[in-house]
């Protein structure tokens, strides 16, 4: 074997190994994009967050998975669950719920907690005893809002994200006030990972679908 052949025989495995290391590193640091809350018009200092839940995201590695999306201030829906809001600020949240519902595993999740002004389709509500599609829950902040599922007989359900207002949906609004800076996990507590063990696999256990982080920045 010539010197050149030996060199190539060493360099190619090394290059492959390096590529594997880089790919692994990039895979591990992969993170959904962050969407900043939009400032409310006027001088109140409040901010607005708009999200939607869909029965299937329709794109990416898992097109059939249920997911949250967050709306950027320029109106573009982003497939992410990383949300950034300012500290010591009132956050007004609007969630468009396009997914259908199922029974809860833990009935405590059917209560609105930590958001006394919650409204469902314009009506105040604090409890939802019918099927629930998802919840928006930040355990560390004591916030949990159930998102009722659309009726199983809905005539115009949305199948692929992002969904528009012409599809059947519920609109849930609520607000909460942030404290000091910090990073808080939030998630859905309805076992909506269909086809996975106890409904808690797949999108329920994958960052960027039904769980994410709320970044509260100073």
């Amino acid at each position, binding site marked *: 074997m010539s010197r050149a052949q030996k060199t190539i025989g060493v360099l190619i495995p090394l290059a492959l190994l390096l590529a594997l290391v880089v790919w692994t590193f990039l895979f591990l640091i992969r993170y959904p994009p962050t969407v900043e809350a939009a400032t409310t018009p006027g001088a109140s200092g409040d901010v607005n967050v708009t999200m939607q839940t869909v029965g299937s995201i329709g794109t990416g590695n898992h097109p059939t998975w249920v997911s949250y999306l967050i709306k950027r201030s320029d109106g573009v829906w982003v497939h992410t669950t990383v949300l950034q809001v300012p500290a010591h600020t009132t956050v007004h949240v609007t969630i468009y719920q396009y997914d259908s519902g199922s029974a809860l595993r833990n009935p405590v999740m059917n209560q609105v*907690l*930590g958001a006394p002004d919650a409204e469902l389709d314009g009506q105040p509500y604090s409890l939802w005893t019918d099927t629930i599609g998802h919840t928006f829950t930040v355990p560390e902040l*004591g916030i949990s809002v159930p998102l009722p599922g659309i009726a199983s007989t809905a005539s115009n359900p949305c199948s692929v994200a992002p969904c528009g207002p012409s599809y059947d949906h519920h609109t849930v609004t609520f607000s909460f006030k942030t404290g000091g800076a910090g990073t808080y996990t939030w998630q859905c507590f309805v076992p909506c990972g269909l086809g996975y063990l106890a409904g808690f696999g797949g999108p329920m*256990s994958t960052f960027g679908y039904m769980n994410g982080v709320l970044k509260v920045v100073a």
Partner: protein
Amino acid sequence: MSAATSPRNENRFHLRRLLLVWLVLSVIATPIVFFVWGPHMPPGDMSDNAKNQQFANTLLSTVATPVVLFVWVYLGYALLFFRRKDASDEEDGPPIKGHMGFQIGWVGLTTVVVLSLFVYGTYGLIVPNGVGTGSGASPIWTPAGYSGLPQYNKLFQVQVIGQQWRWTFRYPAYQGVETTQLVIPEGVQIQFNTTSLDVIHSFWAYELGVKADAVPGANNIAFAVANRTGNFDIRCAELCGPLHGAMSSVGRVVIEDPDPTLMAALLASAARTR
């Protein structure tokens, strides 16, 4: 070679000096570990279980102190006095031959220490009532007032429900109110009935010294009495998924009140706000 400078006498001289240093340090350090450090050891003294665990940690540390000191003192002594002085000397040291007295002493002492700790540890697992560990659905060592039949059970019942990724707490005696904050009264024997809705979790009320696996479809019972009011940390002690690290909560021990309406009001408040 005179007897005074023979290797045997030299070894005895080193041994005596080494043991003297070790003895002095042990006499100083061991009481410090027991009396000064001990009261500050985890998990504190918020409950009867925690006190027991704290004492166990103190006892183990106290027993270990002379052992650790012996290792350190010998290491330091060897570095100072037994290091190679002549760089060209690469010969092995003289072989160590058996010493019956030393071997009997070594084996005997370690046996006594380990067996004593075994007996103490076994006793400590039984008294009081499993020391806060999950004892299954039919615990053997139970406090007064416990009964496997709910209608005869006089303990304060809390159902601890784990799910990915949070804890909720249900109070059968208060119309089954379920909260996400654990509230328990001071000075009252609590019975935690731990279970899970999905995967295996582990309910760990750190300052209360309670740790019980939460297993789907099973009831794992643990007991505790909180000695004083205050907050305590609750964590999941079993890797249960991506947000396992976020599965934490803060519990409260409140003043025991003969009027059950106060407790009911506290629980209702906890249910609304957390």
